[in-house]
């Protein structure tokens, strides 16, 4: 077969396979699109069979979700989730940055062992420590306290952050740092002028991924919080049992609470794999 024929064959197949890819992409996205559409329907239109695709649009679902119908307001839960996710992400960065520095730029002895220790803690299932943490919280009056979640989310994300940042900091050529040192630059200058600019995109991606994991977490939040420190996913568990016609409200709630994750996820899209695979895949 000539090269031209090969290319022609592959181009014709390429169009067909491109269509298949489009089709599968739409199938995977359909539940989300349907959720979005339903959230803008009235409750009566949301619960029809066959489905009402062309029903008129309304913001009632969102109004209901935000407490217009006398239900619980989601704002405390949204604020709790924001505090837990943002604060734990900041703590993670404060702890992980120096650690990653000591594991890549000026590595300690046996740095690979330390790195793998961090990774192994990630593989310890959360339920393994749940009961002692619950008993501890109960005896120290930390139950239903958002800062307990902040501490736990920090420990949940720290290994991911250390691994990610290690892989980002390792990409900085040692020669640049050495050159700066030879030119008489002190450590703070090297860190702010040389390391930070190169590592910043990686640090940002790490922060976004830690934010997502904290925002999503349910098990700890469910067990360790109550009315005061309830987070957004715990708020969502209030929709587990059906409450008559409530589909539009459920869809609005799910969508609003997922929005920060969707935004963070798409912002970190390029580094998502690296983060999820703990830096093993670039």
């Amino acid at each position, binding site marked *: 077969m000539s090269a031209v024929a090969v290319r022609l064959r592959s181009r014709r197949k390429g169009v067909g396979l491109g269509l*298949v890819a489009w089709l599968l992409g739409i199938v995977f996205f359909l*539940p989300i699109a349907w959720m979005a559409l339903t959230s803008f329907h009235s409750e009566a239109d949301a619960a029809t069979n066959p489905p009402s695709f062309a029903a008129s649009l309304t913001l009632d679902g969102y109004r209901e979700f935000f407490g217009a119908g006398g239900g619980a307001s989601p704002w405390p839960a949204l604020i709790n989730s924001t505090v837990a996710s943002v604060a734990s992400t900041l703590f993670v960065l404060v702890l992980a940055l120096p650690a990653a520095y000591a594991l890549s730029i000026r590595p300690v002895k046996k740095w690979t062992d330390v790195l793998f220790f961090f990774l192994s803690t990630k*593989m310890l299932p959360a339920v393994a420590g749940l*009961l002692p943490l619950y008993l501890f919280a109960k005896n120290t009056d930390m139950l239903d306290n958002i800062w307990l979640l902040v501490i736990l989310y920090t420990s949940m994300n720290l290994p991911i952050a250390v691994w990610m940042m290690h892989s980002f900091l390792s990409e900085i050529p040692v020669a640049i740092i050495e050159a700066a040192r030879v030119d008489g630059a002190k450590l703070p200058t090297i860190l702010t002028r040389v390391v930070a600019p190169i590592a910043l995109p990686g640090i940002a991606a790490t922060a976004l991924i830690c934010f997502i994991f904290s925002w999503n977490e349910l098990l700890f939040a469910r067990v360790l919080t109550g009315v005061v420190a309830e987070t957004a996913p715990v708020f969502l568990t209030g929709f587990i049992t059906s409450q008559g016609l409530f589909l539009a409200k459920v869809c609005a709630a*799910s969508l609003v609470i997922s929005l920060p*994750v969707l935004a963070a996820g798409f912002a970190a899209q390029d580094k998502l794999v690296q983060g999820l695979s703990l830096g093993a*895949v670039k």
Partner: protein
Amino acid sequence: MTATTTAPVATTPVHTNRQPSARLRAWATRAPLLPALVFMIVVTQLPFVATLVISFFDWNSLYPDARHFAGIDNYREVLTDADLRHSVWTTVLLTVAVVLASLVLGLVLALLLDRRFRGRGVVRTLLIAPFLVVPVAAALLWKHVLYNPEYGLFNGLLHYVGGPQPDWISNTPLLAVEASLVWQWTPFMMLILLAGLQSRDHEQIEAAWVDGASDWQIFRHLTLPHLRRYLELGALLGSIYIVQNFDAVFTITSGGLGTANLPYTVYQSFYQAHENGLASAAGVLVVIGSIIIATFALRVVSSLFREEVSHA
């Protein structure tokens, strides 16, 4: 401060001078690492040790005075209790089914996305989206909006073709949970495998192509061997997350209809039944299961890691 410490050091003999400063420097290198390390040990290792200790006690928090050392009784009970044994089996089934299905689907999608076509970026974004829905929200979406027998989307679409109107969750509860998890985890597998595909040696593939190798031959003999470790990595990381899954089981079936997996059982046995000892023993079993998976996972990660370090 510096003046007082350096002065006596200067007068001491060379060999004693060097040792403390070398030790000091080693500690200075270690210092940035210590906060993170100590934090992790305190927050993750201590609770697990406590779980291990509690697992040897007969301890119901409703009857705290009756607490006593029970040896391996809890483990015996966990392993002989029909419900608990069933939850071990459910965990295995759930994990294997979800990981395999999402891995195969992820591979198909990654292969499709590895080709150039119009709107590839858009399709990629559409495919990643399910992974970026909050897990509880995704579970609610499947439970109420898709599976509901009266007004769910699935039965609504079946209605158009005159199909049956099954009650998805009641008929096939575990499959219902699995399907929702496959939907969420396929993008994860796809991303890892896509990264694997893009790290292939393209010259080698081009050469095979020019030599007249068929697409299937190239896939079978070049792509698949290259992808092997990415498949392993996806499977192992996926297993670690799905073994621990709580959200989907809790939301879609509330552990009913035989879908209670180990994390849900642990949650239930201490949060609702207040059986601290039993819950801990079940927790330790989850850990043992995870350690078995993790040993393999760590090996795969470290082989990818070594390769990278040697490339650098």
